[in-house]
């Protein structure tokens, strides 16, 4: 604590940021919680319905559950692409002698592009008429039978809208993991190599345990970002065809701003928050426990 500080000086520095934060984040969270117990379309009077919204969501709403499982699959695809891809590329990059900076820059490029631009781009990549990049590629390598309109096929659309999100941010996570990997002490690695450790043991026994704290952070980041994924599915398919690429976030958005069912939309967004908190708790629980054993 600074010796000459006064109570007012603390308030002068703390209040403005706290007010902004309350107005934009804390208060809306409480407001959502409050609204979730009401039925309201924004115009007529608010009607208190108790837990009705929650009961409806959990027991009577098929679209909700469909979106929930879609969101989990979306998350899984994003995590594999982002974390798996990031770890693989970061490891490969450490074995490279030159050009690391250039590759880092190139790899990060998609993260700078807006989601709207990415949605446009991928609509064309997946397109069948005129033939897009993906279908043309499949044709060339002799998998022509897989050619399809990826975004209108109910079996592929969810994967097709997840991939761009994974593609977009894998560079970001790669950077973070790479920074952690090159911080692994060289002596540790050299000692292990002298003891005859293979590349694989070197990775699982030395490198990975060493970067575990960073790995936990990146996993949490990627998971919370994956669970709030919205832009790309919303822009590319708007949840369709049918509900096959509907996520909780897009469903919430439509419930709020298309059906103007503010109460029910708040219930869904409260669920999304709980889901995020549970996910973070689970990750901490699993990864921390493994570290202890």
């Amino acid at each position: 604590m600074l010796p000459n500080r006064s109570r007012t000086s603390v308030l002068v520095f703390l209040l403005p940021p706290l007010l902004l934060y309350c107005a934009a984040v804390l208060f809306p969270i409480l407001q959502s919680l409050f609204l979730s117990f009401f039925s309201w379309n924004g115009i007529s009077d608010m009607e208190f319905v108790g837990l009705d919204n929650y009961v409806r969501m959990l027991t009577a709403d098929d679209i909700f559950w469909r979106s929930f499982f879609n969101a989990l699959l979306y998350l899984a695809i994003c995590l594999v692409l982002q974390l798996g891809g990031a770890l693989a590329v970061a490891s490969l990059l450490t074995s490279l002698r030159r050009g690391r900076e250039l590759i880092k820059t190139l790899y990060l490029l998609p993260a700078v592009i807006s989601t709207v631009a990415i949605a446009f781009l991928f609509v064309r990549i997946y397109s069948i008429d005129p033939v897009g990049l993906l279908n043309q590629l499949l044709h060339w390598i002799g998998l022509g039978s897989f050619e399809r309109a990826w975004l209108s096929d109910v079996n592929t659309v969810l994967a097709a809208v997840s991939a761009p999100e994974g593609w977009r941010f894998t560079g970001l996570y790669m950077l973070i993991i790479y920074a952690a990997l090159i911080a692994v002490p060289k002596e540790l690695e050299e000692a292990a190599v002298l003891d005859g450790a293979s590349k694989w043991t070197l990775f699982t026994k030395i490198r990975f345990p060493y970067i575990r704290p960073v790995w936990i952070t990146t996993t949490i980041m990627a998971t919370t970002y994956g669970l709030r994924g919205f832009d790309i599915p919303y822009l590319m398919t708007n949840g369709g065809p049918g509900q096959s690429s509907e996520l909780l976030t897009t469903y919430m958005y439509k419930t709020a701003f298309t059906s103007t069912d503010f109460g029910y939309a708040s219930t869904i967004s409260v669920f999304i928050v709980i889901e995020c908190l549970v996910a973070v708790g689970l990750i901490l629980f699993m990864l921390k426990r493994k570290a202890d054993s």
Partner: protein
Amino acid sequence: MITQTAPATPPTAVVPPKPAITRRRRKPSLYRTLSRVLIMLIVIVQVYPLAWLFLTSLRTEHDFATGDPFALPSSLTWENYARAFETGDLGRNILNSFIVTMGANVLIVLFGMMAAYAIQVLGFRLSKFVRGLFLIGIIVPVQIALVPLFIDYSTVNLLDTYQSMIIPLAGFALPMSIYLFSSFFEYIPRETYEAASLDGAGPYRIFGLITLPLSLNTVVTVVLVNSIFIWNDFIFANTFVLSEDLKTIPLGLQNYIGAMGKVDWTATFAAVCVTITPLLLVFLVLNKAMIQGLESGATKG
């Protein structure tokens, strides 16, 4: 037959080490070539779509509709760019994005610094609790704020303004900014503050004369990292802004989807190229600082 002859001939006992050595020498280089090839492939996957985007923006419409998508354009044309500027108000969109990014960044940096100063340097009884409050904003998804803010904005007439985008963008970015500034302030030695205090400087002068000038590097980090997300924000702009005059780049690009979902693709791609250029240039010029910022933002978090 072979098993019989092999042990019978003594010279072979001398030979085996040789292949072993070459194998050991070749193995890493094989590994290295493989990893190089893999990295090249992955970089192509990351970069080629963007290069393709640019090439397509230079294609003629006919070429785009009929040609092989991987082929180089048969002839280059700037016509798409002319059409892109006719269809949308790209200049206006870029200006709006710029205003929103600047406004949010000022709040994020100034308020982040102030809160970190109060929590980390001045210190007070509930500082741990306040720090915890700010942590919530890192985990909680932004979508939770959409409905409440929409309702609040409409009661205080803030819908369809720059502020309606700036406030939530700044609010949700504030926790990370506070975090980065706090962890930087830890490195400023206590003696510096104590000496200044003895010389009679109060908390305001210390903030202005010591803390602020010392943290310029962190300011750059915070601004760069946040700018990427704010410049590209879609969800807040899409929810709170309706009028053409206030549309930021992501919304402006949506105007290129015409009636019945018909899209003038080559012009759209030209517009995309125009709008990603400012941030792309900043990124390429400052990529060292930006990469460092992204790394530190997460490894400390």
